[in-house]
């Protein structure tokens, strides 16, 4: 099954499980979403539980917050993550803070699904990875799957979660990634990372579409005699510090790979955690291989996105003192 198919599968599974779950957004109904993630959902569950909205992300998230507060389980689709900003206030001021500011009287269990990341020739406004904004916002959870099975299992956990979850779907691997996906009920808990491959010389941390790039880079590094351990945190908030620290303590080296602009990113956070909690184990600098600190380009996308050679270069850095 593709990663995209796993998303659809998760949605259907939970909609069958729990009739409070509703799905809405721009073009999610008859069209089934611009990527097809909601294909067949309106047909199966009707227009009450899967419906198109006016073109207002502010309205989509604002109404979702109200629904969640009232007691149903909204899953809002934002067509591209780049278009989430008209709803930013509702996300960071409202969804994220509802439980806290009301002392737990009102809560906001909802999922915001959105395709994210580059690699599809989407240029400036159909490619960005802005997880950092949300990771810096207490009250939100932030989840990024990198395999089909995880996509299903993490999405089901997100829908069942009692707090608002940003579910970021790496669109570059929507269809290119294929893998086994358990039928029916399949739950992957939030906050538990995954060791993608074991290694002894350097820990590489990556999520979403970058995981497979890092696997190729690790192959490359292996040719040069370096054994790379790859970790996919799966959720950035809550973040599985232990799996990262344990690995870094073992390998003594750390390289973080991500698509977002390098500075002030979640990659920076991981580097900071390592510098705070495992510095005495480090045998080289903590490398960050990110997007550049520029807006996302169109024609030069292939240079902007971390690729094998840039990841290999990053790994090399961790071996220089």
């Amino acid at each position, binding site marked *: 099954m593709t990663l995209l198919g796993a998303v659809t599968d998760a949605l259907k599974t939970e909609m069958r499980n729990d009739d409070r779950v509703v799905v809405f957004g721009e073009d999610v109904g008859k069209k089934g979403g611009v990527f097809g993630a909601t294909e067949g959902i309106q047909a199966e569950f009707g227009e009450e539980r899967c419906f198109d909205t006016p073109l*207002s992300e*502010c309205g989509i998230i604002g*109404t979702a917050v*109200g629904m969640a507060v009232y007691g149903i389980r909204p899953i809002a689709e934002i067509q591209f993550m780049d278009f989430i900003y008209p709803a930013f206030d*509702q996300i960071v001021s409202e969804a994220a803070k509802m439980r806290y500011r009301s002392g737990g009287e009102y809560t906001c269990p909802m999922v915001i699904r959105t395709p994210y990341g580059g690699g599809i020739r989407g240029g400036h406004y159909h490619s960005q990875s802005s997880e950092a904004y949300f990771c810096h916002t207490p009250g939100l959870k932030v989840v990024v799957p990198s395999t089909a099975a995880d996509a299903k299992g993490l999405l089901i956990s997100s829908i069942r979660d009692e707090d608002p979850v940003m579910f970021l779907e790496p669109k570059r691997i929507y269809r290119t990634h294929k893998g086994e996906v358990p039928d029916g009920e399949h739950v992957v808990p939030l906050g538990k990372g995954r060791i993608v491959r074991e290694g002894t010389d350097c820990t590489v941390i990556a999520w979403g579409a970058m995981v497979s790039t890092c696997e190729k880079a690790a192959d490359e590094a292996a040719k040069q005699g370096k054994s790379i351990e790859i970790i996919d945190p799966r959720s950035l908030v809550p973040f599985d510090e232990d799996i990262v620290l344990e690995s870094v303590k073992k390998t003594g080296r750390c390289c973080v790979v991500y698509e977002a602009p390098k500075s002030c990113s979640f990659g920076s956070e991981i580097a900071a955690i390592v510098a705070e909690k495992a510095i005495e184990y480090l045998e080289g600098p903590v490398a960050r291989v990110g997007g550049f600190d520029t807006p996302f380009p169109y024609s030069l996308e292939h240079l902007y996105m971390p690729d094998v050679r840039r990841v290999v270069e990053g790994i090399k850095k961790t071996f220089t003192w």
Partner: protein
Amino acid sequence: MTTKLLTIIEKDGKAAKDKDPNLSDAELRRVYRTMVQTRIMDERALTLQRQGAIGFYLQALGQEASHIGSALPMQDSDWFFPAYRQPGIMLLRGADLDDIVNEWFGNDGDTSKGRQMPVHYSLRSINFVSISSPIGTQLSQAAGAAMAAKIRGDDTVFMTYCGDGGTSSNDFHAGLNFAAVYQAPCVFIVENNQWAISVPSTNQTKSESMAAKAQAYGMPGVRVDGNDILAVYRVCKEAVDRARKGGGPTLVETVTYRMGSHSSSDDADRYRDAKEHESWKQRDPIERFRKYLEKKGIWNEEFQSEIEESFKQDLNDAIKRAKARPKPAAATLFDDVYLQPTQQLIEQRDELLGLEGPESDEIGEFPL
């Protein structure tokens, strides 16, 4: 059409028979009591703020008819997504006075656990959703909750508020649009009190009225004298009934006046003409309603003092209790971020609780 202003109670307290909603005497007295209580509470709280006992306050002075009248047709099971200038709704719906007063003090009895500034109540007990500071955000939320109720087949009605300033917000546009598209059972009340802090409503929009904005969304828009509680009630009753019957949302503009400054941090005299203020004082909503009751023979001085004295007593007691309560415990800082705290939150909590030495005392004054 939308510029016509419905008034029922005239200056002298007379009410046109054909328009009077004919509430029972008991109901009329209950409503009047709530209006007076609201004003007393506002006064007392501002005094507390001036005395430094609480950090901030914001009154609804002059807008008692507007918000109490609109809330009146709502059933107990109905929901409110309020702005910050509708304190009377809490009293009308019988909220626990301690819940209100504890919020001002942000003490350990505060339903919001001291997370928000005074007047940002959250009262699940009366379906009064946690108040937010960012202007307008409640509007699309109310629309969404109403959509949810419709999907579930509940017959709940939702009422939400904003000011004249709030009509310019993103969520006003999104909330009204969604409510109309999905024909959600939601009533939007714009309390046009003529000012958004120092900005007059004529600088807020060139629309001939706030009610006229309903046409942009294809919903009914009604303009009503916001200082006439019977008129407000009548208009909102229609809107609430229509919503409950599946007739979709309504926009109601209550034309009223902010008789005080914006908040305890503001001084309206710096930007507002005293004459304007004076002229609105003549239209005081409580005074107007009192005359109506008097004409009906269900108001007298005794009734007035009974209301005042008993409520002042209750309020004083509540304040005394609230003052005696401590701040929330330090560890509560880390609760309610999520249902379960993350590993990072637990670590941060333990670090904080492990600290020695004096806490900071550098916190300043709130300016607005």
